[in-house]
């Protein structure tokens, strides 16, 4: 738990981690014996996986840097970070009933890299094939989308997604040349778009070499939130309920831009993800792990041990997901891994909202959270979206952080949003 200052009338100040006074040396966790790749699938695809109707299935050989489709050859959605053999494909159900396919790959040695990416780059660096590869880089940069129509602003963000991580600030400082190469590539790809570099104020001096329009932001949560950044940069908020992409914005994290630069320089796909670890003894460590490495392997490398009733969180403390096993893999967008003991577990209570108004004060989207929660608790999702601005939420989790009645506000909001999107999808399908 964070202790607040005595002066409760001030808004809570939640500073991001920084990288100042010397760069840390990321711990390299090496080649894991086995990795797991995780991709989200729809409910209908889930049964396909369970009936073993996938192309990637037990016994298939994959090559490092090669790109594969799960259900057909055409839709390429998985890059193999290692060379090896697929041992099994299974599914799991995540938060709000989302489904994921898990592809386990066993590997014993580094093996030969697949030549596919180099070939694609030589053929046409800006071609669809090469962009498909680049979209799989750590940080999941949306290169494919960038080449399509309708993107008017690209944000290169050195800010973090959540607290307790500093991977983007590290990547920006430690891999400056690659970052610049990546940024230039992005500018070439979208010559008409406005490319803005958003970074914490203390790094502003270092932005000159990049040669982009820059914007300095206070290093306080939730200033790095993509929707809030878009508003800050364009002066106008993205229409409620629309995604960043639908409104013509794209956000590339600093790590992703640097990875793209490195890919272009070395003609091979970097598969190492930077992750900030927060261990039980409150130590933080920067590690560099192959995408797909199970968390347990990383813990082994840094000497952390999980005990019964611990809490393991992938992602930051405000928006992350807690998982039930340390076999869960690091994915291309896992910036932080947190582990803490049961004593830090925030307790929820059974009280109702007491209308203290703190959530309303802290919400960066100016939502009437106190009224919203009354609707959500009673399952009135449509009404919540119509009357109480459910769609404006930028999913920062601050309302839940501050709530005096310790209500699961964020959970209710996310569940409602997910349910509404699912309903919409279903209605569309039914209408066809």
């Amino acid at each position: 738990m964070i202790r607040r200052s005595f002066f409760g009338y001030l808004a809570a100040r939640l500073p991001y981690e920084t990288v100042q006074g010397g760069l840390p040396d990321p711990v390299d966790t090496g080649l894991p014996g086995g990795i797991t790749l995780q991709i989200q699938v729809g409910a209908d695809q889930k049964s396909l996986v369970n009936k073993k109707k996938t192309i990637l299935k037990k016994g298939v050989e994959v090559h490092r840097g090669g790109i594969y489709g799960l259900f057909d050859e055409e839709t390429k959605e998985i890059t193999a970070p290692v060379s090896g053999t697929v041992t099994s494909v299974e599914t799991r159900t995540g938060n709000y009933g989302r489904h994921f396919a898990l592809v386990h790959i066993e590997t014993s040695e580094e093996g030969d890299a697949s030549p596919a990416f180099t070939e694609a780059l030589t053929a046409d660096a800006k071609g669809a094939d090469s962009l498909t590869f680049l979209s799989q880089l750590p940080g999941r940069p949306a290169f494919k989308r960038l080449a399509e129509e309708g993107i008017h602003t690209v944000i290169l963000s050195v800010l973090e997604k959540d607290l307790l991580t500093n991977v983007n600030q590290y990547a920006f400082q430690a891999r400056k040349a690659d970052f610049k190469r990546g940024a230039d590539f992005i500018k070439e790809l979208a010559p008409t778009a406005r490319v803005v570099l958003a970074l914490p104020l203390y790094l502003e001096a270092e932005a000159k070499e990049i040669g982009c329009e820059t914007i300095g932001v206070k290093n306080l949560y939730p200033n790095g939130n993509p929707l809030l950044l878009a508003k800050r940069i364009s002066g106008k908020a993205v229409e409620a309920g629309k995604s960043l992409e639908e409104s013509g914005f794209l956000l590339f994290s600093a790590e992703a831009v640097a990875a793209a630069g490195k890919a272009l320089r070395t003609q091979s796909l970097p598969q190492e993800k930077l992750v900030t670890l927060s261990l039980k003894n409150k130590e933080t460590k920067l590690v560099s792990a192959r995408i797909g490495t199970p968390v347990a392997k990383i813990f082994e490398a840094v000497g952390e041990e999980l005990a019964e009733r611990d809490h393991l969180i992938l992602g930051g403390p405000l928006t992350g997901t807690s998982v039930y096993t340390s076999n869960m893999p690091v994915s291309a967008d896992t910036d932080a891994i947190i582990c803490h003991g049961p004593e830090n577990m925030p307790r929820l209570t059974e009280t109702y909202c007491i209308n203290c108004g703190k959530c309303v004060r802290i919400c960066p989207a100016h939502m009437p959270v106190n009224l919203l929660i009354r609707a959500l608790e009673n399952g009135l999702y449509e009404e919540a979206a119509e009357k109480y601005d459910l769609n404006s939420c930028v999913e920062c989790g601050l309302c839940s952080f501050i709530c005096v009645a310790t209500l699961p506000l964020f959970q209710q909001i996310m569940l409602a949003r997910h349910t509404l999107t699912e309903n919409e999808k279903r209605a569309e399908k039914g209408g066809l």
Partner: protein
Amino acid sequence: MTDSTKLIVSHAPFYRDACTVMKRSYLIMAAALVAIIPGLLIFGIPAVGVCALAVASAILWELTANTLMKQTPTIGDGNAAMIGLILAMLLPATAPWWMVITGTFVAVIMSKTVFGGIGGNPFCPPALSAAVLMISWPHLMNFNGMLVNYDMAWSMVDPLINAKFFGAETADLYTTTDLLMGHQAGGIGAVCGAGLIIGGIFLMVRGINRWEICLSFLSGIFTSALLFHMSNPDLYAGPIFHLLTGYTLVAAFFLATEDASSPVNTIPMLIYGFGGGMLTVLIRNKGAWVDGALFAVLLMNLANPILDMIRPKALGKV
């Protein structure tokens, strides 16, 4: 994908601010005690009795309601105790026991539990209860009559009664220092202006009271009292007198700010507070009642749901 180490899983966020409902109630009670203790010293044992009875009976009423409705007991959040204590602040030291118990019944059961418990009450429970008592037994809530046996070094005539019926110059009988030190007739926790101000500032700084409400309430009192005073200095007492007498400060820091019955958006908070302050002075100077603070708070409670519809546009809404 499973292994034998059983981890705890929950939903984000995994950090929480350390404030809870229980802490909040206790801090409010602590702030109230700053004003109540001087009152206890002035009024002695009977006042202690009233406070103790009010807190105890409020908790018991809530527990009874919980038991009857087969709910898990909610007295742990301290809200019932807080309601009892704030109600005691409004009562005269010599209030009879049955009135105290009736008062807490109205405050806890009739104004909170029947509306669904904490957070659901449309009116501030202690204010509603004190108003009911005032209407039901006017003589028992009349500080002149109730405190007649107290022989003090200062005037034990309710300053508001004096000013209302005997003209504004009687206000000069009460110096500001006297009013701040609690040298006046009034409710147990309402006499000591200095204590109330210290407690109030504490609550505002800790972010428990919404400071917008407190300050706008006080400025509402000040502005309207000043206007009245300027229009007829013989008839109407000045703003400082109104700020420090009657229930003004209790209302500003403990009644108007009650969470569920007050707005949470900035502009509504300012209107709510300022309106409450103005109504208080209006009722005092023009109405039938000696002190309008309770009724002003209740009237503004009534307007709260409509006021709170004035809110900023949410992000990305057109």
